[in-house]
Every structure is written in C-alpha cells, then in structure tokens.
C-alpha cells in the first residue's frame, strides 16, 4: 500500500494537535499554583497531592470506571446480538422498525432519557444508585454498538455463510468462526464508543443516581456554580496519562509476538 504524502502527514498532525490542544491546556494549568485556569503563576504539584488526599474523589473515579467498563461490556454483548438479529431479519419492514427504534435513544436529549428512566426505575422499584446507573448506561450505549456493528455485517458476503453451511458447520460454529471474527473490528469500535458515552454522560446519570453514588461527570457539573477546582484538572491529567499509558502498553504487548496479519484465525 502506498504511504501518505507530505501533505497528508501535515493534515494528520494538524488534526491531532487540535484534538489534544484542550487536554494539553487542562494539564498545563493543573501545575498552576495560581489556583485557576488562567495566568500561570508558578509550578506546583499541590493539586496532584490534593487528588490523593481526597478519598471521596478517588471513590467517585473508581465508580465511574467500574460503571464504564461493565456497561460497555454488557451493552456490546447485547448490541452485537441485536445487530446480528436485525441483519438476518427476513421481514424488511420489521427490520426498518427495529432500526428506527434503535436510533431513538441516540436522538433523545439526555434530559428526556434521564427523566423517563427515573420514572421507569421508580415504577419498577429499583433502588437508585449503582444498579440504576449501570442499567441506564447499558441502555443508552446499546444503539451505538448496533450502529457500529451493522455495516460490518452488511459487508460480509452471504456466500461466506453458505460456504460454511455447505461444509457442514453448525449454527454455533458459524457464529463463532465466521460471523464474529469478521465483525470483530466493529465490535471493538462499538465497545470503545460505549465506553466513551458512559464516561462522558452527565445528564442521565444525574437523574438516575442517588444514595451516595456519584460519577465524575456529575461531580464536576455540580461544582460549576462555584467554579471547578484545579484538583479536577490534576485528576483529569492523571486519568489521561494512565489511560494513554495502558493503551500504549497493551498495544506494545499485543504486537510483540507477531501475530499473523488479520485474516482468518482458526
């Protein structure tokens, strides 16, 4: 495959610079002894020290990560199942109805989702807290997974399945050996977007949480009235460095023993 030209490289660099500019700005001021996000006074670690002293804050971060991981995992599983069943639906009209249903949660403003989930949970009698937050995060992440996985299914040629059937594969084998490996990139994409949705959500979580359970977004929004402290900047800096480190580490580990380039694994 041909390499990118010089212009392409400049373009990509520009995109990355813009993407990371606000984060760099946040992290830069997390070292500001001046206490706010402007007028850099002098270098300090005090805001980082404050993060580790605040047990409540650390607890909230852990909650946020747990909810994000679990909700992304479960919504990916359900979303993949949904995408597969939608894709192989015989009735075209039914298929379109399902597709529209799927996207409704994506367009509904968070406030509505939050308010209606709140009513739902209280009707059903689910205690507000971890369970209700996890359930709603799963619920609003499912459609994005479906949308990420469907195009992969559409690309898959039906002859692949026919061939497998001809070779005497069972339905289970077709699923695990043909379909899932083929749509794997879509699954990963869906998982990461689900993770993103969960980490970023404020409004829905705000509505459905309670009894001492809080996530980072809710905490940050509630600070807005009196101003967000630089402790939060420091915390975000830490989260950023840790996630970037984990991902890089994972990537390096994964690529050390050279696996055969994609293709069909059996």
């Amino acid at each position, binding site marked *: 495959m041909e390499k990118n030209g010089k212009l392409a490289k400049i373009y990509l660099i520009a995109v990355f610079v813009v993407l990371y500019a606000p984060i760099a700005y946040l992290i830069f001021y997390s070292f500001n002894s001046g206490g706010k996000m402007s007028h850099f006074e002098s270098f300090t670690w005090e805001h980082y020290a404050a993060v580790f002293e605040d047990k409540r804050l650390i607890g909230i971060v852990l909650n946020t990560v747990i909810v994000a991981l679990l909700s992304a995992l479960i919504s990916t599983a359900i979303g993949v199942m949904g995408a597969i069943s939608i894709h192989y639906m015989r009735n075209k009209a039914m298929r379109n109805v399902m597709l529209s249903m799927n996207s409704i949660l994506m367009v509904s403003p968070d406030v509505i989702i939050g308010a209606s989930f709140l009513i739902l949970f209280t009707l059903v009698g689910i205690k507000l807290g971890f369970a209700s937050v996890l359930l709603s995060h799963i619920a609003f992440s499912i459609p994005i997974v479906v949308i990420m996985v469907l195009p992969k299914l559409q690309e898959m040629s039906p002859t692949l399945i026919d061939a497998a059937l001809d070779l005497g594969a069972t339905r289970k084998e077709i699923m695990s050996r043909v379909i899932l490996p083929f749509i794997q990139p879509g699954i990963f994409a869906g998982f990461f977007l689900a993770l993103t949705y969960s980490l970023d959500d*404020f409004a829905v979580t705000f509505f459905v949480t309670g009894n001492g359970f809080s996530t980072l977004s809710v905490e940050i929004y509630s600070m807005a009235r009196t101003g967000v402290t630089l402790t939060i900047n420091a915390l975000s800096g830490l989260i950023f460095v840790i996630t970037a480190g984990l991902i890089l580490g994972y990537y390096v580990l994964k690529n050390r023993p050279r696996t055969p380039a994609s293709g069909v694994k059996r």
Partner: protein
Amino acid sequence: MVRRMKTNRTNFRLPLVPYSLWIILFVIAPIGLIVYYSFFDLGGNFTLSNYSNFFTSVYLQLTVSSFWYAFLITFFSLLIAYPTAYFLTKLKHKQLWLLLIIIPSWINLLLKTYAFIGLMGLYGPINAALEAFGIGKHQILFTDFSFVFVSVYIFIPFMILPIFNALDKLNPALIDASRDLGANAWTTFTRVIWPLTLNGVKSGIQVVFIPALSLFMITRLIAGNRVITLGTAIEQQFLVTQNWGMGSTIAVFLILFMVVILLLTTANERGMAGSGKKR
C-alpha cells in the same frame, strides 16, 4: 432459491431476546411515556394545545435553526473526518492511531469546554497567536464559528470511527484494478472508494447529525445562547419551566424528524444494494 433457503436457516432467534427486551424496556416504554405526557397541560388536563403551541413562530424558528446548525456540524465533521480516516488507514500502527483519536473524548466534556473557553478567550493562546501575526485580537467565543468548531471537535471521533472501519476493509486490489484500468485518482475515489465506504459514512452521519440536533450545554458555554437547539428548549421545559407536556411535545417532533432521516438513509441503502447486484 436453494441459497435462500440456506440463508434462512441462519435466522438467529436466540440473540434477539435480550435485545428485544432492551427495546421494550428502554425504548418503547420511555417513548410511550413521552407521547403520553405530550397530551397533558400543566394542570394535568388532557389537551392538544402543546401541539398547536409548537407551531407558533418561536418553536418553528428554533427547529429551522437547529437543523441548519446540525447540518453545518455534520458537513464539517465529514469534511474533516473522511481524509483523516483515509490517511489513518495508511499508517503503520493504524489501530493505535485510531485509539489516540478516541482517547480525548474520555476527558470530561465540561472540562474540555472550559479549556476551549480559555483557548479562545480574548487573552488566550489563539488570540495571542493572531496578534503575533499582526491580525489583532478577535472575539472568537460566542460566535457561530466557535460553536460549530467545538461541536465538530466533540463529534469528530464518532464520524472517523465508522469511516475508518469501512476504509480499512476496502480491498486494495480494487483500487489497483481501478488504477490499472486507467482511472485517475478522482475517478477512483468517486467510482470505487466512496461508494464502497458509503455505509460507514451513513453510520457517521447518523451518529453526528441526530445528536447535533439536541446539543445543549455548549450552546450556552461556547455560543453564549446565540445558538439555541431543540435540545436546549426541551431541557428548559423539563428542568426550569417544569412543563413536561411541552417538553415532551418538542421531543415527539424530534423523534419524528429522526425517524424520517433514518428512513431516508435506509431506503437509499437498499437501492444501492440492488444496483450493485444488477451489475
């Protein structure tokens, strides 16, 4: 005919269960509630006045401007995302670079918005750079530009991802073949690459345009309420005015708009598949 029968055997019923359950509980039930609420006024009486209210000038004007900004945001997202995704697929560690595109969206949106307020401020780095180039200070915040820019920033990973996936699966042999047949780069793009990645583009448009209609928060923080979307209006009705009826009515319209958009894109898709087979 034989083939069809075989495909039918792969009708997956079991996976449908949890997904259908989700649809019933978290889609149909909430929509039912919204539609139900939209027929009630503040006093809890049955009424159609919310619907007639929607057609007064303010809300119609709001809808039109919402659509216009959502269109702008989607357009620029696509314009920037497509080449980015394309160039990314040619990099050596493309999966890693793709992850690096997503990571920024894991940092809290409000914080990033505050960072943008700082960056775009009168004394921020951007204005400092403009001054250094002799252009002089400009009010960047609270303009259409800042609003579209930050919205595109927020949505771009969601646009890049599906396009990247589509491009990544593109068989390089097809491009080579097109080249061998004497097509220039532009023809190769319009006749081969673009049609084959159209599904990815459509997914991208869906995940950007629809949420862009209901953006709130940054309409206030970055646009200083010079831009008001349907989402902002719904938010106000639910949280401030506590007129759930009116809020639900606007939401009903939003859902209708979305269904129309979805039906349009899926209809096209079927046409595409059909024409592909004929050839």
